[in-house]
């Protein structure tokens, strides 16, 4: 039987459509269709000047908007030769890592919802609201911040907000172990729903361009923060958690889920270090206040987003409007492996939901 899942389906995390050929409960093959949220980011970028493009990058991956801002800003800074002040680099790390935690929390909550556990969703949103409150204090927005801008950040970090962030770290750090792991990670039903399901072998993952937690879940040690350091990540200490196949085969849904949980703790560790060392000084380069006009050239800049490698390829022709901006979206590549996974082994229809949830896609980014 041909079954149409999506574009309006509660568990596809947006407007993602999969046409599955089923035999009873078994999925024999699937075909993904995307583009239902194609919002023409690249065309919009060609019509606005360099500073005006930043808000569009927010709306690509709205769950970790800071990293998208950062990727684009870093690309333009490279192109225009703008030096970012030291303080701004520290602020960027703080907000990006907090945003990563918020994004992983949402992934955790909705994954529980997909599997059939509603409680984790409420817990995750309770803690996510605390991060959003900090961001709101910082830049006045809850979701699409446009906070990281070309040349630095938009507003300065006050001591009050730094104290808030430290208080959040103290509050949140024990939560992961005590609450979340007890609530969901080591729950027997959850483990039997996710272990040995949707196994991605490492080689296949790399060939499909899967990056981020989904790749590390397959045991590949690749994190741009460590392998190609940008910002001040080379000065900070952190571990890169990878999947180990604890509950089943290496690279199953549980491994991918667990990498996210462990990454949250590393993010908190990074935030603590950055808050401790943050220097005084300006928070934005003066040259980039008004307008940016890079020389003709091109650059491809990558940062590690919450879902993987966020890349921006920016071509300049010497005017104040980008000639071409191409965004490399991690979810776009991550979800392309889905059709292969369903053809590799026969998965159940309910497992398909578990697989999509464990890949943690954001449709705004898949379709741009």
């Amino acid at each position, binding site marked *: 039987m041909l079954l149409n899942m999506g574009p309006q389906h509660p568990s596809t995390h947006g407007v993602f459509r999969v046409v599955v050929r089923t035999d009873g409960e078994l999925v024999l093959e699937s075909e993904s269709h*995307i*583009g239902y949220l*194609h919002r*023409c980011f*690249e*065309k919009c970028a*060609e019509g606005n000047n360099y500073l005006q493009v930043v808000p569009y990058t927010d709306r690509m991956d709205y769950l970790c908007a800071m990293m998208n801002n950062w990727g684009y800003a870093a690309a333009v800074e*490279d*192109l225009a030769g703008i030096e970012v002040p030291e303080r701004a680099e520290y602020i960027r790390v703080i907000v990006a890592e907090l945003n990563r935690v918020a994004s992983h929390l949402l992934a955790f909550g909705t994954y529980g919802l997909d599997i059939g556990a509603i409680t984790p969703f409420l817990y995750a949103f309770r803690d996510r609201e605390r991060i959003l409150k900090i961001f709101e204090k910082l830049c006045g927005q809850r979701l699409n911040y446009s906070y990281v801008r070309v040349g630095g950040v938009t507003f300065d970090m006050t001591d009050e907000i730094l104290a808030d962030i430290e208080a959040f770290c103290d509050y949140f750090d024990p939560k992961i172990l005590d609450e979340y792991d007890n609530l969901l990670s080591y729950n027997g039903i959850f483990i039997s729903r996710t272990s040995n399901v949707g196994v991605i072998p490492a080689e*296949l993952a*790399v*060939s*499909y*361009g899967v*990056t981020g937690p989904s790749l590390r879940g397959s045991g*590949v040690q*690749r994190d741009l923060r460590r*392998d*190609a350091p940008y910002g001040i990540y080379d000065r900070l200490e952190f571990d890169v958690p990878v999947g180990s196949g604890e509950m089943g085969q290496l690279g199953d849904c549980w491994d991918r889920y667990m990498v996210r949980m462990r990454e949250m703790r590393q993010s908190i560790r990074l935030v603590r270090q950055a808050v401790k060392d943050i220097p005084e000084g300006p928070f934005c380069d003066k040259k980039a206040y008004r307008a940016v006009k890079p020389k003709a*050239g*091109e*650059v*491809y800049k*990558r940062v590690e987003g919450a879902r993987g*490698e966020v*890349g921006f*390829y920016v*071509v300049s022709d010497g005017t104040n409007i980008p*000639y*071409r901006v*191409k965004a*490399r979206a991690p979810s*776009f*590549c991550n979800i*392309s*492996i889905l059709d*292969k996974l369903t053809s590799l082994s026969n998965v159940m229809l309910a497992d398909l939901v578990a697989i999509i949830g464990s890949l943690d896609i954001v449709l705004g980014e898949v*379709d*741009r």
Partner: protein
Amino acid sequence: MARLEIGQIIAVIKEKLPEAVVEEILDGVDPFVVVKAEQWGETAQLCRDDSRLGFDLLSCISGVDYPEREEGPEIEVIYHLDSTVNHHGITIKVKLPRSDPRVASVEEIWRTADWHERETYDLVGVIFEGHHNLVRILCAEDWVGHPLRKDYEPPDSFHGIKNVIY
């Protein structure tokens, strides 16, 4: 295996395929090499299979339209390759004539190229020869034109829905 500098990477490619590299720009912000369109398939195979290069991850495929080049209207297809083993990367460009942009598909070499090539076909209109299913991926199936061409005009209405309101 070890991390190679851009010069060494080009040397490895030239050693195996002396004709392939036609241009190398190493002084820009991001260095890149231009590869002959006819030899892109072999070069891609070499990039992935040679253990010194080991480019196992295709990060991104971008298409850029240059209708006003001195050499004649061109479309560039840019491949950003990366190695998860050696932790180095390279940018490879292929220049195609704008009137008939055709280049070999690399979806057999890197599976991720499947969707990237469909996207580039959809938005820029590059035809990837040998792709098993080269259809639109982002725009609606019956969309007309390739939106990221510089001379693209959006339709006034699509299936009876007004598209331009101001």
